[in-house]
Protein backbone atom coordinates (compact mmCIF):
# COMPACT_ATOMS: atom_id res chain seq x y z
CA UNK A 1 0.00 0.00 0.00
CA UNK A 2 2.77 2.42 0.97
CA UNK A 3 4.60 1.57 -2.19
CA UNK A 4 1.61 2.60 -4.20
CA UNK A 5 1.40 5.92 -2.41
CA UNK A 6 5.03 6.82 -2.97
CA UNK A 7 4.61 5.78 -6.57
CA UNK A 8 1.72 8.20 -6.93
CA UNK A 9 3.79 10.99 -5.41
CA UNK A 10 6.63 10.25 -7.81
CA UNK A 11 4.36 10.01 -10.83
CA UNK A 12 2.78 13.40 -10.23
CA UNK A 13 5.75 15.57 -11.27
CA UNK A 14 6.17 13.29 -14.29
CA UNK A 15 2.54 13.78 -15.27
CA UNK A 16 2.85 17.54 -14.89
CA UNK A 17 6.04 17.56 -16.91
CA UNK A 18 4.41 15.53 -19.66
CA UNK A 19 1.39 17.83 -19.71
CA UNK A 20 3.67 20.84 -20.10
CA UNK A 21 5.72 19.12 -22.79
CA UNK A 22 2.52 18.38 -24.68
CA UNK A 23 1.34 21.98 -24.30
CA UNK A 24 4.77 23.21 -25.41
CA UNK A 25 4.69 21.32 -28.72
CA UNK A 26 1.07 22.27 -29.47
CA UNK A 27 2.05 25.16 -31.78
CA UNK A 28 3.80 22.58 -34.00
CA UNK A 29 0.59 20.53 -34.25
CA UNK A 30 -2.24 23.05 -34.31
CA UNK A 31 -3.10 25.75 -36.79
CA UNK A 32 -3.34 29.39 -35.64
CA UNK A 33 -7.13 29.18 -35.17
CA UNK A 34 -6.98 26.21 -32.83
CA UNK A 35 -3.95 27.60 -31.08
CA UNK A 36 -5.75 30.82 -30.20
CA UNK A 37 -8.62 28.69 -28.91
CA UNK A 38 -6.20 26.88 -26.59
CA UNK A 39 -4.85 30.28 -25.61
CA UNK A 40 -8.32 31.43 -24.62
CA UNK A 41 -8.84 28.20 -22.70
CA UNK A 42 -5.69 28.85 -20.67
CA UNK A 43 -6.72 32.42 -19.87
CA UNK A 44 -10.25 31.44 -18.88
CA UNK A 45 -8.74 28.62 -16.82
CA UNK A 46 -6.57 31.08 -14.88
CA UNK A 47 -9.61 33.29 -14.21
CA UNK A 48 -11.70 30.34 -13.06
CA UNK A 49 -8.89 28.91 -10.92
CA UNK A 50 -8.52 32.34 -9.32
CA UNK A 51 -12.23 32.48 -8.55
CA UNK A 52 -12.17 28.93 -7.27
CA UNK A 53 -9.49 29.81 -4.74
CA UNK A 54 -12.20 31.78 -3.02
CA UNK A 55 -15.28 29.79 -4.03
CA UNK A 56 -14.19 26.16 -3.92
CA UNK A 57 -11.65 26.43 -1.11
CA UNK A 58 -13.07 29.17 1.10
CA UNK A 59 -16.74 28.63 0.25
CA UNK A 60 -17.35 32.26 -0.67
CA UNK A 61 -19.63 32.37 -3.69
CA UNK A 62 -19.02 35.55 -5.67
CA UNK A 63 -21.53 36.55 -8.32
CA UNK A 64 -19.22 39.23 -9.68
CA UNK A 65 -15.79 37.78 -10.56
CA UNK A 66 -15.86 39.59 -13.91
CA UNK A 67 -15.73 42.90 -12.02
CA UNK A 68 -12.14 42.14 -11.01
CA UNK A 69 -11.25 40.51 -14.31
CA UNK A 70 -12.27 43.68 -16.13
CA UNK A 71 -10.23 45.79 -13.72
CA UNK A 72 -7.14 43.78 -14.66
CA UNK A 73 -7.88 44.07 -18.36
CA UNK A 74 -8.54 47.83 -18.25
CA UNK A 75 -5.55 48.58 -16.03
CA UNK A 76 -3.30 47.05 -18.63
CA UNK A 77 -5.16 48.60 -21.56
CA UNK A 78 -5.26 52.11 -20.10
CA UNK A 79 -1.59 52.05 -19.08
CA UNK A 80 -0.50 50.93 -22.52
CA UNK A 81 -2.87 53.33 -24.24
CA UNK A 82 -2.19 56.53 -22.29
CA UNK A 83 1.40 56.08 -21.10
CA UNK A 84 4.69 54.96 -22.56
CA UNK A 85 5.29 52.51 -19.72
CA UNK A 86 6.77 49.17 -20.77
CA UNK A 87 4.54 46.14 -21.20
CA UNK A 88 6.08 44.37 -18.20
CA UNK A 89 5.05 47.12 -15.80
CA UNK A 90 1.49 47.11 -17.13
CA UNK A 91 1.42 43.36 -16.71
CA UNK A 92 2.42 43.69 -13.05
CA UNK A 93 0.16 46.67 -12.45
CA UNK A 94 -2.96 44.80 -13.60
CA UNK A 95 -3.05 42.24 -10.78
CA UNK A 96 -1.86 44.84 -8.26
CA UNK A 97 -4.71 47.23 -9.08
CA UNK A 98 -7.18 44.32 -9.21
CA UNK A 99 -5.89 43.30 -5.79
CA UNK A 100 -6.35 46.81 -4.40
CA UNK A 101 -9.89 46.99 -5.77
CA UNK A 102 -10.63 43.56 -4.26
CA UNK A 103 -9.29 44.78 -0.94
CA UNK A 104 -11.79 47.64 -0.92
CA UNK A 105 -14.71 45.60 -2.26
CA UNK A 106 -13.82 42.58 -0.13
CA UNK A 107 -13.57 44.64 3.03
CA UNK A 108 -17.30 45.31 2.74
CA UNK A 109 -18.27 41.92 1.35
CA UNK A 110 -16.73 39.70 4.04
CA UNK A 111 -18.96 41.41 6.59
CA UNK A 112 -21.91 39.60 5.04
CA UNK A 113 -22.68 35.92 4.66
CA UNK A 114 -24.56 33.59 2.32
CA UNK A 115 -26.80 35.16 -0.27
CA UNK A 116 -26.10 38.69 0.97
CA UNK A 117 -22.38 38.24 0.35
CA UNK A 118 -23.09 37.08 -3.17
CA UNK A 119 -25.52 39.92 -3.86
CA UNK A 120 -23.00 42.48 -2.64
CA UNK A 121 -20.28 41.13 -4.93
CA UNK A 122 -22.78 41.34 -7.78
CA UNK A 123 -23.65 44.95 -6.95
CA UNK A 124 -19.98 45.97 -6.80
CA UNK A 125 -19.17 44.30 -10.09
CA UNK A 126 -22.14 46.06 -11.68
CA UNK A 127 -20.84 49.40 -10.41
CA UNK A 128 -17.41 48.71 -11.88
CA UNK A 129 -19.06 47.76 -15.15
CA UNK A 130 -21.22 50.91 -15.14
CA UNK A 131 -18.23 53.17 -14.46
CA UNK A 132 -16.24 51.65 -17.32
CA UNK A 133 -19.25 51.76 -19.60
CA UNK A 134 -20.21 55.37 -18.87
CA UNK A 135 -16.85 57.09 -18.34
CA UNK A 136 -16.44 57.69 -22.03
CA UNK A 137 -13.72 60.34 -21.77
CA UNK A 138 -11.33 57.95 -20.04
CA UNK A 139 -12.32 54.40 -20.95
CA UNK A 140 -13.91 55.05 -24.37
CA UNK A 141 -17.08 53.45 -23.01
CA UNK A 142 -18.86 51.07 -25.32
CA UNK A 143 -16.29 51.51 -28.11
CA UNK A 144 -13.68 49.82 -25.96
CA UNK A 145 -9.96 50.38 -26.38
CA UNK A 146 -8.56 48.78 -29.48
CA UNK A 147 -5.14 48.44 -31.13
CA UNK A 148 -3.31 48.11 -27.86
CA UNK A 149 0.44 47.89 -28.44
CA UNK A 150 2.25 44.77 -27.30
CA UNK A 151 5.99 44.15 -27.59
CA UNK A 152 7.16 42.55 -30.83
CA UNK A 153 8.38 39.32 -29.27
CA UNK A 154 4.86 38.30 -28.24
CA UNK A 155 3.04 39.75 -31.20
CA UNK A 156 2.70 36.50 -33.10
CA UNK A 157 0.07 34.03 -31.96
CA UNK A 158 2.62 31.28 -31.31
CA UNK A 159 4.78 33.51 -29.13
CA UNK A 160 1.79 34.87 -27.27
CA UNK A 161 0.71 31.31 -26.66
CA UNK A 162 4.05 30.52 -24.99
CA UNK A 163 3.79 33.72 -23.02
CA UNK A 164 0.29 32.76 -21.80
CA UNK A 165 1.47 29.25 -21.04
CA UNK A 166 4.28 30.53 -18.82
CA UNK A 167 2.10 33.03 -16.95
CA UNK A 168 -0.71 30.49 -16.57
CA UNK A 169 1.79 27.90 -15.33
CA UNK A 170 3.19 30.30 -12.75
CA UNK A 171 -0.32 31.34 -11.65
CA UNK A 172 -1.47 27.75 -11.22
CA UNK A 173 1.71 26.87 -9.32
CA UNK A 174 1.13 29.83 -6.99
CA UNK A 175 -2.53 28.88 -6.45
CA UNK A 176 -1.42 25.30 -5.78
CA UNK A 177 1.07 26.50 -3.18
CA UNK A 178 -1.58 28.71 -1.58
CA UNK A 179 -4.21 25.99 -1.28
CA UNK A 180 -1.72 23.45 0.06
CA UNK A 181 -0.29 25.84 2.64
CA UNK A 182 -1.58 26.12 6.23
CA UNK A 183 -3.38 29.23 5.02
CA UNK A 184 -5.21 27.22 2.35
CA UNK A 185 -6.14 24.54 4.85
CA UNK A 186 -7.55 27.21 7.15
CA UNK A 187 -9.68 28.49 4.28
CA UNK A 188 -11.09 24.99 3.83
CA UNK A 189 -11.84 24.81 7.54
CA UNK A 190 -13.74 28.09 7.21
CA UNK A 191 -15.67 26.68 4.26
CA UNK A 192 -16.69 23.63 6.26
CA UNK A 193 -17.61 25.47 9.43
CA UNK A 194 -16.89 29.16 9.96
CA UNK A 195 -18.15 29.17 13.55
CA UNK A 196 -15.88 26.37 14.73
CA UNK A 197 -12.92 27.90 12.95
CA UNK A 198 -13.60 31.14 14.77
CA UNK A 199 -13.75 29.23 18.08
CA UNK A 200 -10.27 27.84 17.68
CA UNK A 201 -8.94 31.36 17.50
CA UNK A 202 -8.85 32.16 13.83
CA UNK A 203 -10.02 35.54 12.67
CA UNK A 204 -12.32 34.30 9.93
CA UNK A 205 -12.94 37.66 8.30
CA UNK A 206 -9.25 38.42 7.80
CA UNK A 207 -8.75 35.05 6.16
CA UNK A 208 -11.79 35.56 3.96
CA UNK A 209 -10.56 39.00 2.99
CA UNK A 210 -7.14 37.56 2.13
CA UNK A 211 -8.81 34.89 -0.02
CA UNK A 212 -10.91 37.57 -1.70
CA UNK A 213 -7.84 39.66 -2.54
CA UNK A 214 -5.77 36.71 -3.77
CA UNK A 215 -8.67 35.61 -5.92
CA UNK A 216 -8.94 39.14 -7.31
CA UNK A 217 -5.22 39.19 -8.11
CA UNK A 218 -5.47 36.08 -10.27
CA UNK A 219 -8.64 37.36 -11.94
CA UNK A 220 -6.62 40.49 -12.70
CA UNK A 221 -3.83 38.40 -14.22
CA UNK A 222 -6.35 36.65 -16.44
CA UNK A 223 -7.88 39.96 -17.50
CA UNK A 224 -4.45 41.34 -18.42
CA UNK A 225 -3.60 38.18 -20.38
CA UNK A 226 -6.81 38.49 -22.33
CA UNK A 227 -6.16 42.16 -23.00
CA UNK A 228 -2.75 41.29 -24.48
CA UNK A 229 -4.26 38.38 -26.38
CA UNK A 230 -7.02 40.31 -28.13
CA UNK A 231 -5.19 43.68 -28.22
CA UNK A 232 -8.46 45.25 -27.12
CA UNK A 233 -10.78 45.60 -24.13
CA UNK A 234 -14.53 46.18 -23.91
CA UNK A 235 -16.86 46.93 -20.99
CA UNK A 236 -18.69 43.63 -21.43
CA UNK A 237 -15.58 41.86 -20.07
CA UNK A 238 -17.09 42.92 -16.75
CA UNK A 239 -20.79 42.22 -17.21
CA UNK A 240 -22.94 39.63 -15.51
CA UNK A 241 -22.69 37.34 -18.54
CA UNK A 242 -18.91 37.16 -18.14
CA UNK A 243 -19.27 36.56 -14.39
CA UNK A 244 -21.61 33.69 -15.06
CA UNK A 245 -19.26 32.29 -17.67
CA UNK A 246 -16.46 32.10 -15.09
CA UNK A 247 -18.83 30.57 -12.54
CA UNK A 248 -20.11 28.00 -15.03
CA UNK A 249 -16.55 27.06 -15.95
CA UNK A 250 -15.77 26.35 -12.29
CA UNK A 251 -18.91 24.30 -11.82
CA UNK A 252 -18.48 22.44 -15.10
CA UNK A 253 -15.01 21.26 -14.15
CA UNK A 254 -15.74 20.76 -10.47
CA UNK A 255 -15.17 23.26 -7.69
CA UNK A 256 -13.71 20.77 -5.19
CA UNK A 257 -10.74 19.82 -7.33
CA UNK A 258 -7.68 21.86 -8.05
CA UNK A 259 -7.73 21.23 -11.79
CA UNK A 260 -11.53 21.42 -12.03
CA UNK A 261 -11.68 25.02 -13.30
CA UNK A 262 -8.94 24.33 -15.86
CA UNK A 263 -10.76 21.28 -17.20
CA UNK A 264 -14.00 23.28 -17.15
CA UNK A 265 -12.38 26.06 -19.19
CA UNK A 266 -11.18 23.61 -21.84
CA UNK A 267 -14.56 21.91 -22.19
CA UNK A 268 -16.49 25.18 -22.05
CA UNK A 269 -14.44 26.96 -24.72
CA UNK A 270 -14.56 23.89 -26.93
CA UNK A 271 -18.36 23.68 -26.63
CA UNK A 272 -18.68 27.42 -27.16
CA UNK A 273 -16.69 27.40 -30.41
CA UNK A 274 -18.13 24.18 -31.77
CA UNK A 275 -21.78 24.90 -31.03
CA UNK A 276 -21.58 28.56 -32.07
CA UNK A 277 -20.40 27.44 -35.50
CA UNK A 278 -23.54 25.32 -35.94
CA UNK A 279 -26.23 27.51 -34.49
CA UNK A 280 -26.86 31.06 -33.35
CA UNK A 281 -28.73 29.63 -30.38
CA UNK A 282 -25.61 28.92 -28.30
CA UNK A 283 -27.20 30.53 -25.21
CA UNK A 284 -30.05 28.03 -25.41
CA UNK A 285 -27.63 25.10 -25.53
CA UNK A 286 -25.53 26.65 -22.77
CA UNK A 287 -28.65 27.09 -20.65
CA UNK A 288 -29.61 23.44 -21.08
CA UNK A 289 -26.02 22.37 -20.29
CA UNK A 290 -26.08 24.42 -17.08
CA UNK A 291 -29.43 22.96 -16.04
CA UNK A 292 -28.16 19.42 -16.58
CA UNK A 293 -24.94 20.23 -14.73
CA UNK A 294 -26.66 21.72 -11.72
CA UNK A 295 -29.18 18.93 -11.43
CA UNK A 296 -27.20 15.85 -12.38
CA UNK A 297 -23.47 16.54 -12.27
CA UNK A 298 -22.86 18.43 -9.07
CA UNK A 299 -19.20 17.50 -8.68
CA UNK A 300 -18.41 18.69 -12.21
CA UNK A 301 -16.46 16.65 -14.74
CA UNK A 302 -13.42 16.10 -12.55
CA UNK A 303 -15.61 15.21 -9.58
CA UNK A 304 -17.54 12.73 -11.71
CA UNK A 305 -14.40 11.08 -13.11
CA UNK A 306 -12.64 10.77 -9.74
CA UNK A 307 -15.81 9.31 -8.27
CA UNK A 308 -15.99 6.70 -11.02
CA UNK A 309 -12.29 5.86 -10.60
CA UNK A 310 -12.76 5.49 -6.87
CA UNK A 311 -15.75 3.22 -7.44
CA UNK A 312 -13.86 1.09 -9.94
CA UNK A 313 -10.93 0.74 -7.52
CA UNK A 314 -13.29 -0.22 -4.73
CA UNK A 315 -14.86 -2.88 -6.91
CA UNK A 316 -11.43 -4.23 -7.81
CA UNK A 317 -10.34 -4.53 -4.20
CA UNK A 318 -13.69 -6.07 -3.33
CA UNK A 319 -13.25 -8.62 -6.10
CA UNK A 320 -9.72 -9.35 -4.97
CA UNK A 321 -10.92 -9.87 -1.42
CA UNK A 322 -13.67 -12.19 -2.66
CA UNK A 323 -11.04 -14.17 -4.54
CA UNK A 324 -8.83 -14.45 -1.46
CA UNK A 325 -11.65 -15.46 0.84
CA UNK A 326 -12.96 -18.09 -1.56
Amino acid at each position, binding site marked *: MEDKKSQAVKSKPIAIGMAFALLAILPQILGPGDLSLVNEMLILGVAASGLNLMMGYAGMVSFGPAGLYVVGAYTMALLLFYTELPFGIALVAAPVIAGIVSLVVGWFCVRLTHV*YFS*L*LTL*AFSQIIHT*IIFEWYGFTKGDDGIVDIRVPGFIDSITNYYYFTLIIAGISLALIWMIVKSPFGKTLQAIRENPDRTEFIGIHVRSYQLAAFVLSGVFLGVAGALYCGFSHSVFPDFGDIMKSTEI*LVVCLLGGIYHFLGPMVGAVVYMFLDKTISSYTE*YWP*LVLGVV*IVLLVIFLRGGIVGFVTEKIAMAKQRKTAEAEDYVSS
Partner: protein
Amino acid sequence: MSGLSVGMVIFLIAVGLSLIFGTLKVLNLAHAAFYMLGAYLCFWVSSLIGQSIGSFWVSLLIAPLLVALFGGIVEMLLLRKIYDREVLDQFLLTFALILIIGDLCKLAWGVDYHTVDTPWPLNAPVIFKGLIFPRYNLFIILFAPLLWAGLWSLIHKTRLGSIIRAVTHNREMASALGVNVSYVYTGVFMLGCWLAGLGGALVAPMSAVMPGMDAVVLIDCFIIVVVGGLGSLSGAFLGSVIFGLVTAFGILIAPRLAIAFGFILMIVVLIIRPWGLMGKPE
Protein backbone atom coordinates in the same frame (compact mmCIF):
# COMPACT_ATOMS: atom_id res chain seq x y z
CA MET B 1 -46.09 60.17 -15.87
CA SER B 2 -44.82 57.40 -18.05
CA GLY B 3 -41.96 56.97 -15.58
CA LEU B 4 -44.44 56.50 -12.77
CA SER B 5 -46.49 53.92 -14.63
CA VAL B 6 -43.40 51.94 -15.65
CA GLY B 7 -42.32 52.16 -12.02
CA MET B 8 -45.66 50.69 -10.97
CA VAL B 9 -45.20 47.74 -13.29
CA ILE B 10 -41.68 47.13 -12.01
CA PHE B 11 -43.10 47.30 -8.51
CA LEU B 12 -45.58 44.51 -9.35
CA ILE B 13 -42.79 42.36 -10.75
CA ALA B 14 -40.65 43.05 -7.68
CA VAL B 15 -43.52 41.95 -5.43
CA GLY B 16 -43.55 38.61 -7.26
CA LEU B 17 -39.79 38.25 -6.88
CA SER B 18 -39.95 39.07 -3.19
CA LEU B 19 -42.83 36.67 -2.62
CA ILE B 20 -40.90 33.84 -4.23
CA PHE B 21 -37.77 34.53 -2.24
CA GLY B 22 -39.72 34.87 1.00
CA THR B 23 -41.39 31.50 0.72
CA LEU B 24 -39.11 29.37 -1.44
CA LYS B 25 -35.84 31.00 -0.33
CA VAL B 26 -34.76 30.90 -3.96
CA LEU B 27 -33.20 33.91 -5.59
CA ASN B 28 -34.95 33.75 -8.94
CA LEU B 29 -32.75 35.53 -11.48
CA ALA B 30 -35.11 34.37 -14.21
CA HIS B 31 -37.97 36.40 -12.78
CA ALA B 32 -37.57 39.12 -15.39
CA ALA B 33 -37.46 36.46 -18.11
CA PHE B 34 -40.98 35.48 -17.05
CA TYR B 35 -41.89 39.14 -17.39
CA MET B 36 -40.56 39.15 -20.94
CA LEU B 37 -42.45 35.94 -21.68
CA GLY B 38 -45.60 37.66 -20.42
CA ALA B 39 -45.07 40.55 -22.83
CA TYR B 40 -44.47 38.20 -25.78
CA LEU B 41 -47.49 36.07 -24.92
CA CYS B 42 -49.63 39.19 -24.63
CA PHE B 43 -48.54 40.21 -28.12
CA TRP B 44 -49.06 36.70 -29.44
CA VAL B 45 -52.51 36.12 -27.94
CA SER B 46 -53.79 39.53 -28.98
CA SER B 47 -52.54 39.04 -32.52
CA LEU B 48 -54.19 35.61 -32.63
CA ILE B 49 -57.51 37.12 -31.66
CA GLY B 50 -57.07 39.86 -34.22
CA GLN B 51 -58.25 43.40 -34.42
CA SER B 52 -61.27 43.18 -32.17
CA ILE B 53 -61.90 45.65 -29.41
CA GLY B 54 -61.37 43.34 -26.48
CA SER B 55 -58.32 41.50 -27.80
CA PHE B 56 -55.89 43.18 -25.41
CA TRP B 57 -58.09 42.59 -22.41
CA VAL B 58 -58.46 38.93 -23.22
CA SER B 59 -54.72 38.54 -23.61
CA LEU B 60 -54.13 40.51 -20.42
CA LEU B 61 -56.15 37.79 -18.76
CA ILE B 62 -54.68 34.81 -20.61
CA ALA B 63 -50.98 35.71 -21.01
CA PRO B 64 -50.16 35.92 -17.26
CA LEU B 65 -52.00 32.65 -16.68
CA LEU B 66 -49.89 30.97 -19.36
CA VAL B 67 -46.76 32.37 -17.73
CA ALA B 68 -47.94 31.03 -14.36
CA LEU B 69 -48.55 27.64 -15.93
CA PHE B 70 -45.07 27.62 -17.44
CA GLY B 71 -43.67 28.70 -14.08
CA GLY B 72 -45.45 25.83 -12.39
CA ILE B 73 -43.86 23.36 -14.79
CA VAL B 74 -40.42 24.90 -14.22
CA GLU B 75 -40.89 24.69 -10.46
CA MET B 76 -41.95 21.06 -10.51
CA LEU B 77 -39.32 19.88 -12.97
CA LEU B 78 -36.28 21.94 -11.98
CA LEU B 79 -36.45 24.26 -9.01
CA ARG B 80 -37.84 21.62 -6.70
CA LYS B 81 -34.56 19.74 -6.97
CA ILE B 82 -32.40 22.55 -5.67
CA TYR B 83 -34.17 23.93 -2.60
CA ASP B 84 -31.63 22.36 -0.24
CA ARG B 85 -28.67 23.37 -2.36
CA GLU B 86 -26.27 26.23 -2.03
CA VAL B 87 -26.87 29.65 -3.44
CA LEU B 88 -24.45 28.95 -6.31
CA ASP B 89 -26.71 26.25 -7.73
CA GLN B 90 -29.72 28.54 -7.50
CA PHE B 91 -27.85 31.33 -9.23
CA LEU B 92 -26.70 29.11 -12.08
CA LEU B 93 -29.98 27.29 -12.59
CA THR B 94 -32.06 30.45 -12.68
CA PHE B 95 -29.48 32.16 -14.89
CA ALA B 96 -29.73 29.19 -17.25
CA LEU B 97 -33.47 29.79 -17.36
CA ILE B 98 -32.82 33.37 -18.51
CA LEU B 99 -30.77 32.02 -21.43
CA ILE B 100 -33.31 29.34 -22.28
CA ILE B 101 -36.40 31.54 -22.07
CA GLY B 102 -34.65 34.35 -23.95
CA ASP B 103 -33.66 32.07 -26.82
CA LEU B 104 -37.03 30.33 -26.92
CA CYS B 105 -38.70 33.73 -27.30
CA LYS B 106 -36.28 34.51 -30.14
CA LEU B 107 -37.05 31.16 -31.77
CA ALA B 108 -40.78 31.66 -31.48
CA TRP B 109 -41.15 35.35 -32.31
CA GLY B 110 -37.89 36.38 -34.00
CA VAL B 111 -35.45 39.13 -33.09
CA ASP B 112 -37.56 42.04 -34.41
CA TYR B 113 -39.53 44.12 -31.99
CA HIS B 114 -43.30 43.84 -31.76
CA THR B 115 -45.88 46.33 -30.62
CA VAL B 116 -49.28 46.01 -29.04
CA ASP B 117 -51.87 48.75 -29.65
CA THR B 118 -53.07 50.72 -26.69
CA PRO B 119 -56.43 49.13 -25.90
CA TRP B 120 -59.82 50.71 -26.15
CA PRO B 121 -61.16 52.64 -24.17
CA LEU B 122 -57.80 53.81 -22.85
CA ASN B 123 -56.27 54.94 -26.12
CA ALA B 124 -57.35 58.57 -25.78
CA PRO B 125 -55.53 60.97 -23.51
CA VAL B 126 -57.13 62.81 -20.64
CA ILE B 127 -56.63 66.57 -20.64
CA PHE B 128 -56.48 68.11 -17.22
CA LYS B 129 -55.62 71.78 -16.67
CA GLY B 130 -53.96 71.94 -20.06
CA LEU B 131 -51.72 68.93 -19.36
CA ILE B 132 -52.14 65.74 -21.36
CA PHE B 133 -52.24 62.43 -19.51
CA PRO B 134 -52.34 59.16 -21.43
CA ARG B 135 -55.30 57.23 -20.10
CA TYR B 136 -53.53 53.88 -20.21
CA ASN B 137 -50.81 55.12 -17.87
CA LEU B 138 -53.43 56.43 -15.45
CA PHE B 139 -55.06 53.01 -15.54
CA ILE B 140 -51.80 51.30 -14.54
CA ILE B 141 -51.11 53.79 -11.78
CA LEU B 142 -54.50 53.01 -10.28
CA PHE B 143 -54.49 49.29 -11.05
CA ALA B 144 -51.10 48.37 -9.54
CA PRO B 145 -51.74 49.61 -5.99
CA LEU B 146 -55.19 47.98 -6.05
CA LEU B 147 -53.62 44.69 -7.04
CA TRP B 148 -50.99 45.05 -4.36
CA ALA B 149 -53.70 45.74 -1.76
CA GLY B 150 -55.55 42.64 -2.93
CA LEU B 151 -52.41 40.57 -2.65
CA TRP B 152 -51.62 41.96 0.78
CA SER B 153 -55.08 41.00 2.02
CA LEU B 154 -54.70 37.58 0.44
CA ILE B 155 -51.50 36.98 2.39
CA HIS B 156 -52.51 38.59 5.65
CA LYS B 157 -56.28 38.12 5.91
CA THR B 158 -57.23 34.78 4.38
CA ARG B 159 -56.76 31.20 5.46
CA LEU B 160 -54.69 30.46 2.35
CA GLY B 161 -52.50 33.42 3.24
CA SER B 162 -51.94 32.13 6.74
CA ILE B 163 -50.86 28.78 5.30
CA ILE B 164 -48.38 30.57 3.03
CA ARG B 165 -47.06 32.57 5.94
CA ALA B 166 -46.76 29.43 8.05
CA VAL B 167 -44.69 27.74 5.35
CA THR B 168 -42.58 30.87 4.95
CA HIS B 169 -41.96 31.03 8.66
CA ASN B 170 -41.15 27.40 9.33
CA ARG B 171 -41.33 24.84 6.61
CA GLU B 172 -40.84 21.74 8.80
CA MET B 173 -43.39 22.83 11.39
CA ALA B 174 -45.98 23.64 8.75
CA SER B 175 -45.34 20.29 7.13
CA ALA B 176 -45.71 18.54 10.48
CA LEU B 177 -49.06 20.26 10.95
CA GLY B 178 -50.34 18.71 7.75
CA VAL B 179 -49.65 21.42 5.20
CA ASN B 180 -48.58 20.08 1.85
CA VAL B 181 -45.47 22.22 1.52
CA SER B 182 -44.67 21.31 -2.06
CA TYR B 183 -48.15 22.40 -3.20
CA VAL B 184 -47.64 25.71 -1.43
CA TYR B 185 -44.23 26.12 -3.08
CA THR B 186 -45.60 25.45 -6.53
CA GLY B 187 -48.55 27.73 -5.87
CA VAL B 188 -46.45 30.62 -4.60
CA PHE B 189 -44.01 30.26 -7.47
CA MET B 190 -46.91 30.32 -9.93
CA LEU B 191 -48.35 33.38 -8.21
CA GLY B 192 -44.97 35.12 -8.49
CA CYS B 193 -44.72 34.18 -12.16
CA TRP B 194 -48.28 35.36 -12.72
CA LEU B 195 -47.29 38.76 -11.33
CA ALA B 196 -44.22 38.87 -13.58
CA GLY B 197 -46.30 37.83 -16.58
CA LEU B 198 -48.93 40.43 -15.74
CA GLY B 199 -46.21 43.05 -15.57
CA GLY B 200 -45.06 42.02 -19.02
CA ALA B 201 -48.57 42.10 -20.46
CA LEU B 202 -49.20 45.53 -18.94
CA VAL B 203 -45.97 46.91 -20.39
CA ALA B 204 -46.65 45.58 -23.90
CA PRO B 205 -48.82 48.55 -25.06
CA MET B 206 -46.33 51.05 -23.60
CA SER B 207 -43.05 49.82 -25.04
CA ALA B 208 -41.67 47.56 -27.71
CA VAL B 209 -41.68 43.82 -27.06
CA MET B 210 -38.20 42.58 -27.97
CA PRO B 211 -35.31 40.36 -26.91
CA GLY B 212 -33.30 41.74 -24.02
CA MET B 213 -36.19 43.73 -22.55
CA ASP B 214 -35.79 41.70 -19.37
CA ALA B 215 -32.24 42.76 -18.48
CA VAL B 216 -32.98 46.26 -17.20
CA VAL B 217 -36.07 45.18 -15.33
CA LEU B 218 -34.18 42.39 -13.63
CA ILE B 219 -31.63 44.77 -12.19
CA ASP B 220 -34.26 47.27 -11.05
CA CYS B 221 -36.29 44.54 -9.37
CA PHE B 222 -33.28 43.19 -7.57
CA ILE B 223 -32.36 46.57 -6.20
CA ILE B 224 -35.95 47.20 -5.06
CA VAL B 225 -36.30 43.83 -3.40
CA VAL B 226 -32.93 43.95 -1.67
CA VAL B 227 -33.53 47.50 -0.44
CA GLY B 228 -37.04 46.74 0.78
CA GLY B 229 -36.14 43.40 2.27
CA LEU B 230 -36.12 40.01 0.57
CA GLY B 231 -39.47 38.39 1.20
CA SER B 232 -41.35 41.44 2.44
CA LEU B 233 -44.39 42.68 0.50
CA SER B 234 -44.52 46.10 2.13
CA GLY B 235 -40.75 46.23 1.71
CA ALA B 236 -41.20 45.93 -2.04
CA PHE B 237 -43.47 48.97 -1.90
CA LEU B 238 -41.05 51.02 0.19
CA GLY B 239 -38.14 49.82 -1.95
CA SER B 240 -39.88 50.95 -5.14
CA VAL B 241 -40.53 54.41 -3.76
CA ILE B 242 -36.96 54.87 -2.51
CA PHE B 243 -35.48 53.42 -5.68
CA GLY B 244 -37.64 55.74 -7.79
CA LEU B 245 -36.56 58.77 -5.78
CA VAL B 246 -32.88 57.86 -5.82
CA THR B 247 -32.91 57.18 -9.56
CA ALA B 248 -34.74 60.45 -10.25
CA PHE B 249 -32.21 62.26 -8.08
CA GLY B 250 -29.38 60.47 -9.87
CA ILE B 251 -30.73 61.48 -13.27
CA LEU B 252 -30.87 65.07 -12.04
CA ILE B 253 -27.24 65.31 -10.94
CA ALA B 254 -25.44 62.75 -13.11
CA PRO B 255 -27.67 61.29 -15.82
CA ARG B 256 -25.07 58.89 -17.17
CA LEU B 257 -24.41 57.33 -13.80
CA ALA B 258 -28.09 57.02 -12.80
CA ILE B 259 -27.88 53.21 -12.77
CA ALA B 260 -24.89 53.35 -10.47
CA PHE B 261 -26.96 55.27 -7.91
CA GLY B 262 -29.30 52.30 -7.70
CA PHE B 263 -26.40 49.96 -7.03
CA ILE B 264 -24.92 52.31 -4.46
CA LEU B 265 -28.29 52.34 -2.72
CA MET B 266 -28.29 48.55 -2.75
CA ILE B 267 -24.73 48.37 -1.42
CA VAL B 268 -25.45 50.82 1.39
CA VAL B 269 -28.53 48.88 2.47
CA LEU B 270 -26.72 45.53 2.22
CA ILE B 271 -23.91 46.80 4.40
CA ILE B 272 -26.03 48.53 7.04
CA ARG B 273 -29.06 46.24 7.08
CA PRO B 274 -28.47 43.16 4.90
CA TRP B 275 -32.02 41.88 5.42
CA GLY B 276 -33.47 45.11 3.97
CA LEU B 277 -35.43 48.01 5.37
CA MET B 278 -38.63 46.07 6.09
CA GLY B 279 -37.22 42.56 6.22
CA LYS B 280 -36.54 40.51 9.31
CA PRO B 281 -33.04 39.30 10.23
CA GLU B 282 -32.61 35.55 9.87
